[in-house]
């Protein structure tokens, strides 16, 4: 390694050790990502294979369990462990894609509002206020009713409910940045607006956006389970953890593991994401860094 690189490596290592919480979170998230990527190798069965005669078998610690199915089976005899493993793919992809969609939309609108001000700012700010006071359930139910169920429409709906928070943040930061000297200088030097935005504004937004996006990722995973609760989630036979949880909720008294196991998976993942977010924020935020 070159000397320069080693210094950066040490710097990163030092900063990481400052935030133990963040590191723990990062490890948790990496674990879940690994499961999602390696699903075909880890999963003992095809998550879609039904075995009606062996439905609702309890997990291994129960005397009535079936030795073939470690964590038990679901309503139509599918292996719960396999569904759990593949479910990670669905929950994570819903989370990431939704986050990306709302982030791109929200950031763009926020930059336009904050940089150009004037009429655009009024329109966009009012839209943000309206969206934030608007019951997103109504939006979700209507869009799902019109567009029909499905993975793509779910991303659309969740994305449409998630963008205002980015816009609000970005707009405030852009306004503040614009008043700073180096931006005035850049513009005075005759740079095009888009150039200024790309080269100077955007890089300074990255830290706050990354922190926000991380927490939003966790929130979107939870929100997806809420839509599943209303019956507007991923259609069968695919199942996200949120969907498995919503299905299993009537059985929490009695066949409790049907809800507990996906619930634990969601808990572990979102906990990890949140801790990681805390860590990133502590790492990037100049105020809280040195103490």
């Amino acid at each position: 390694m070159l000397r320069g690189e080693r210094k950066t490596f040490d710097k990163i290592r030092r900063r990481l050790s400052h935030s133990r919480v963040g590191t723990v979170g990062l490890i948790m998230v990496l674990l879940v990502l690994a499961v999602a990527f390696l699903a075909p190798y880890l999963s003992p069965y095809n998550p879609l294979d039904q075995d009606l005669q062996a439905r609702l078998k309890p997990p291994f610690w129960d005397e009535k369990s079936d030795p073939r199915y470690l964590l038990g089976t679901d309503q139509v005899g599918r292996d719960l462990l396999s569904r759990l493993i593949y479910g990670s793919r669905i929950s994570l992809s819903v989370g990431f894609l939704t986050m990306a969609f709302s982030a791109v939309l929200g950031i763009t609108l926020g930059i336009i509002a904050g940089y150009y001000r004037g009429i655009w700012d009024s329109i966009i700010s009012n839209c943000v206020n309206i969206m934030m006071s608007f019951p997103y359930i109504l939006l979700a139910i209507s869009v799902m009713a019109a567009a029909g169920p499905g993975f793509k429409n779910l991303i659309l709906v969740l994305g449409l409910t998630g963008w205002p928070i980015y816009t609000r943040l970005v707009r405030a930061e852009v306004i503040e940045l614009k008043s700073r000297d180096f931006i005035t200088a850049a513009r005075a030097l005759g740079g095009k607006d888009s150039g200024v935005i790309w080269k100077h504004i955007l890089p300074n937004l990255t830290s706050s956006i990354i922190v926000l996006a991380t927490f939003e990722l966790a929130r979107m995973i939870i929100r997806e389970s809420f839509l599943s609760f209303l019956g507007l989630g991923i259609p069968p036979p695919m199942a996200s953890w949120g969907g498995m949880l919503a299905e299993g909720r009537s059985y929490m008294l009695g066949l409790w593991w049907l809800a507990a196991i996906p619930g634990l998976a969601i808990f572990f993942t979102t906990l990890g994401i949140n801790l990681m977010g805390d860590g990133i924020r502590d790492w990037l935020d100049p105020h809280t860094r040195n103490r």
Partner: protein
Amino acid sequence: MLREFTARKFGTIILSIFSLLMLIGSAGASPKGKLVCALSTDLSTLDPQNHNIRVNYIIGWHLYDNLVMRNQKTMKIEPHLAESWRIIDDFTWEFKLRKGIKFDNGEPFNAECVKFTIERGLDPKCPQRPTVSWIKEVKVIDDYTVRLITHTPYPVALERLANYQMLPVKWVKEKGVDFIATNANGTGPYRLKEWKRGVHIILEAKENYWKGAPAIKTIIYRPIKEIATQISELLTGGIDIVRDIPPDQIPLVENSGIARISKAPTLRVVYLLFDADGRAGKSPVQNLKVRQAISHAIDVDTIIKTVMTGNATKTAAVLNPQHFGYDKSLENPYPYNPEKARQLLKEANFPFDQPLRLVTYTGSIQNPRALIEAVAGYLAKVGIKTNVNVYTDIGMWDRLGREGKQNDMSIHSWGSGGVYDADALYYSYFRSGQAYCYGSSPEMDKWLDQARSTLDQNLRKKLYYQVGKYINDHALAVSFYAQHAILGINKRVIYEAPPDEFLRTFEAQLKE
């Protein structure tokens, strides 16, 4: 003089004692105790005709009375507000009404009330119009005799009248429609004590109910949407009756110590309907061989044993054994045979790369997700790909059905509204022009129209057999099963599950 006086005094005393004894004897045991039941949705209105929701009917039966009533134990129609009836000619039914019955406010029940209530239902805006649309005219013969003139001979008249609550004409006209939506004035066994929307409805027993005071003094119905919460309340003694225990939770309730399970086969049938007419667009299921293949591919017996945990009864040509018109010989036209299914699909040049739409809805079907996924699983085994969806949005489901957009395959259920007759089901689903009809033919139309306008039961049975056979031969539907009502009842309550899904808690009793 003295002797007369004493005699009279003596007579009066005897008479008084006799009256007192009669009074005590006729009053019977006074209503006592409290019963709390859970409902999955809240009551929408107290107006007996301005709805078509089962929950409203259940409360309606407590507050108001029908002309005739189905006995829960014998399942036979019995006189209720109507004392007797006779058929005068093919188009005329005459009912003799019970005398001396009064509504809560003292208004007497008579033929005018019957005329008024039925004519209310004939309004095109009334959600219960189909219950009385067969009636052309109501003639009041005298205070306690009323004649119903029908458009055509209508065989199912009594069945329909077993679920149509009678209103006091003067009271409704005086108070207006808006008032009766939130107030009750009926001849029924209970009166309305309090209705707090979303919280509870409290019913209080009428000691002087014409049929005899009910056993339980106070009945409370609470709307609770989540089944997990309903079961929690059952297990902690907060609720005494839960109407729809999921079949897989039966052991939980039976082992709880505080509640027990009561089951009864109901009228509600579950079946898979094909868009055989291609009403929603071109579809592979328009091909008879494809439908037959799918019928062979689904193992209904295993589904009944596993997904329904045995709590379901097999049906024939979509009909429930309890339906008039059911014929056991029509059962199982396409036994489970996946090889035959694959062969038929090949013969039909089935497009294996094109997924078929397979949908159902939540609400009246028990465990719809497990059912539809099991069906999808069987279809996958013979190579048929499916796009599955379970609608929790009943409004959307209804709309798709009526607007002819339920393509490929949809799983339906039909409760028949307590009408134990094939007409209730067949007409709506297999008569062309009806909102839910996706598989029809001119022959079936002829048979169905004929069966609904004759009083000859033998002829009707033959006609319905022909319809059933047609459905089987043309695989217009895959018959699954008839559901069983599974109730969770607190051990201190004496009541059993009703086979027609109408909870008659006014007949319940509490253990001493």
